[in-house]
């Protein structure tokens, strides 16, 4: 108790020096929570966008379909099995037909994935209704903003699209961009050409066929559907979670670097502070304070630093984090250019566990980095500490 009182007295008595240390530590606190929250928010947003624009309630895949192998697309098409067709008829699912193709905007050739989707679907949040409203003679096409940017295409542009039909014959026609959608999921944007499903079925001579069927969110995913393979939401998210796990390993390295930087800053200031107080430490020893109590005193000062830093961080960082969690921070550039799912405003997600965990971690680090130099200096002979000399 005496040591805590002395530590608090030393801290408050040191004035500017204490508050400078506390400010640096509180900055580390807030920065780490701020960054962690952004990463958490980024992940949650990415998952939400993936669900809304692509995965919905899961899917039924044609048995030959392998999204990682484009050569399977030649064979990966067929009429969905009966029970799935019933869901289609009830509006609880939608068929998607895929083929590879090429487009030739202004003479440049670009490979694309041509996707047929029912224009009137409401399973995913893509603005496909514009495909049904087209009255021109070309093939109506919907593309994402990222694709439009990279291919330098605008709404109303007409270009040649080439594909191969069910018989292996190459065919080509004029396509017109009826709309450019702003969507954060590059999986439905980059290199993707969205057509009305019926139109693509006609082009490929595959009436009523699909490559896969997307179930509506909340719809029951049928298990017994013959050769077609039901793919639950977790299948898609697992794939996604694997990526997240890989990325979170990277994130852990980032946090470790951030923490190490914060710890080095704190260590530096603690070392400076403690070594500047060598004479004081020598005096304490001369007055009869034993080494372990000297170490405990300075370590307690470090621990109290972190408590004060937490309070200060809560005062200035709390409103900042609240603002970031509710309003977000707008990106200074177009998120569709990144090639990963990013919200136009970065929203932080700050959980109690994360804040407490970070607080505890930083507190432990501050205490440890206070202990190390204090222990070193307490090992000095009192005469050396009194004269300010060190080994």
């Amino acid at each position, binding site marked *: 108790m*005496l040591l805590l009182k*002395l530590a608090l*007295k*030393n801290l*408050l*008595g*040191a004035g500017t020096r204490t508050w400078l240390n506390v400010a640096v530590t509180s900055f580390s606190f807030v920065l780490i929570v701020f960054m962690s929250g952004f990463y958490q928010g980024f992940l949650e947003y990415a998952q939400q966008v993936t669900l809304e624009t692509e995965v919905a309630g899961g899917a039924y895949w044609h048995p030959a379909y392998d999204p990682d192998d484009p050569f399977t697309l030649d064979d990966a098409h067929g009429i969905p099995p009966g029970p799935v067709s019933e869901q289609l008829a009830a509006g609880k699912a939608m068929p998607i037909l895929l083929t590879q193709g090429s487009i030739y905007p202004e003479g440049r050739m670009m490979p694309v994935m041509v996707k047929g989707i029912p224009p009137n679907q409401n399973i995913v949040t893509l603005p496909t209704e514009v495909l049904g409203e087209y009255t021109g003679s070309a093939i109506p096409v919907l593309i994402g903003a990222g694709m439009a940017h990279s291919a330098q295409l605008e709404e109303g542009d007409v270009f040649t699209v080439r594909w191969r039909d069910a018989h292996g014959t190459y065919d080509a026609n004029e396509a017109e961009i009826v709309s450019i959608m702003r969507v954060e999921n590059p999986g439905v944007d980059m290199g993707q050409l969205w057509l009305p499903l019926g139109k693509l079925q006609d082009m490929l001579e595959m009436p009523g066929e699909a490559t896969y069927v997307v179930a509506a969110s909340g719809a029951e995913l049928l298990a017994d559907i013959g050769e077609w393979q039901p793919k639950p939401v977790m299948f898609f998210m697992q794939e996604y979670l694997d990526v997240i796990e890989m990325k979170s390993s990277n994130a852990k390295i980032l946090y470790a670097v951030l923490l190490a930087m914060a710890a080095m800053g704190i260590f530096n200031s603690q070392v400076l502070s403690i070594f500047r107080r060598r*004479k*004081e430490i*020598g*005096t304490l*020893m*001369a*007055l*009869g*304070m*034993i*080494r372990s109590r000297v170490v405990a005193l300075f370590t307690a000062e470090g621990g109290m630093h972190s408590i004060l830093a937490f309070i200060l961080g809560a005062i200035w960082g709390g409103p900042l984090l609240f603002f970031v969690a509710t309003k977000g921070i707008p990106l200074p550039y177009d998120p569709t250019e990144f090639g990963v799912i990013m919200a136009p405003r970065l929203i932080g997600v700050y959980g109690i566990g994360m804040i407490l965990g970070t607080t505890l971690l930083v507190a432990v680090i501050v205490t440890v980095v206070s202990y190390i130099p204090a222990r070193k200096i307490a090992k000095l*002979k*009192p*005469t050396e500490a*009194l004269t300010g000399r060190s080994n």
Partner: protein
Amino acid sequence: MDDNHIVEIRELVKRYPVGGGHFTALRDVTTDVVVGEFTGLVGPSGSGKTTLLNIIGGLDAPSEGSVTVLDMPLGGKNHKELAHLRREGIGFIFQTFNLLPVYTVFENVEFPLLLMGMNGEDRRSAVNQALEWVDLMDKVKSRPAQLSGGECQRVAIARAIVKKPKLIIADEPTANLDAENSHNVMGLMVNLNRELSTSFMFATHDEKVMGYLTRIIHLIDGRIDEDEQVSKPKYREGK
């Protein structure tokens, strides 16, 4: 150990490692200090005054020989036992005062009693008495940075005497003070020496301090060159 002795030193040698060899700071020092003595270690820089005081105070260890302070042989004692000796039995006064800068005058003087675990009421009473001795009752809430050099040294004296130690060690206590303040703090210490029979050991080459000493040990090159009893110190009676 003789009951009247508070310090007994026998054939003390102190060496410091320097480069590949060593420097001998004290050679075959043998002496005693009795209760109530007002002793000064006098000599030029590097003669071993501070080293001898540090060893007596348990701040440094002898290389050879034996040192017994307040009935405790210092040889082989660990840092906890030496800290206990300093905490309970020895007061220190430093050349540069060594006050704790964030504490008030009262808190600085109170600090040794906190380390001893004295209860609050006794502590406050002892601190007030010590501050009265040094005439600093009007500065109890001041911090060291707000005090003059003389006032700082008076606080240091109060801190040294507050626990009523048997021995006070003072290393060049007047080196940072002007003549008037030097006489003031020496006068205070003489009074304490008389009233409490506290033994004082000084390291000094200040003529003013020497004028108050009842015993002067002259050190040259780490040896006792002369051990002089002063029957009529120059300033002692008049100040």
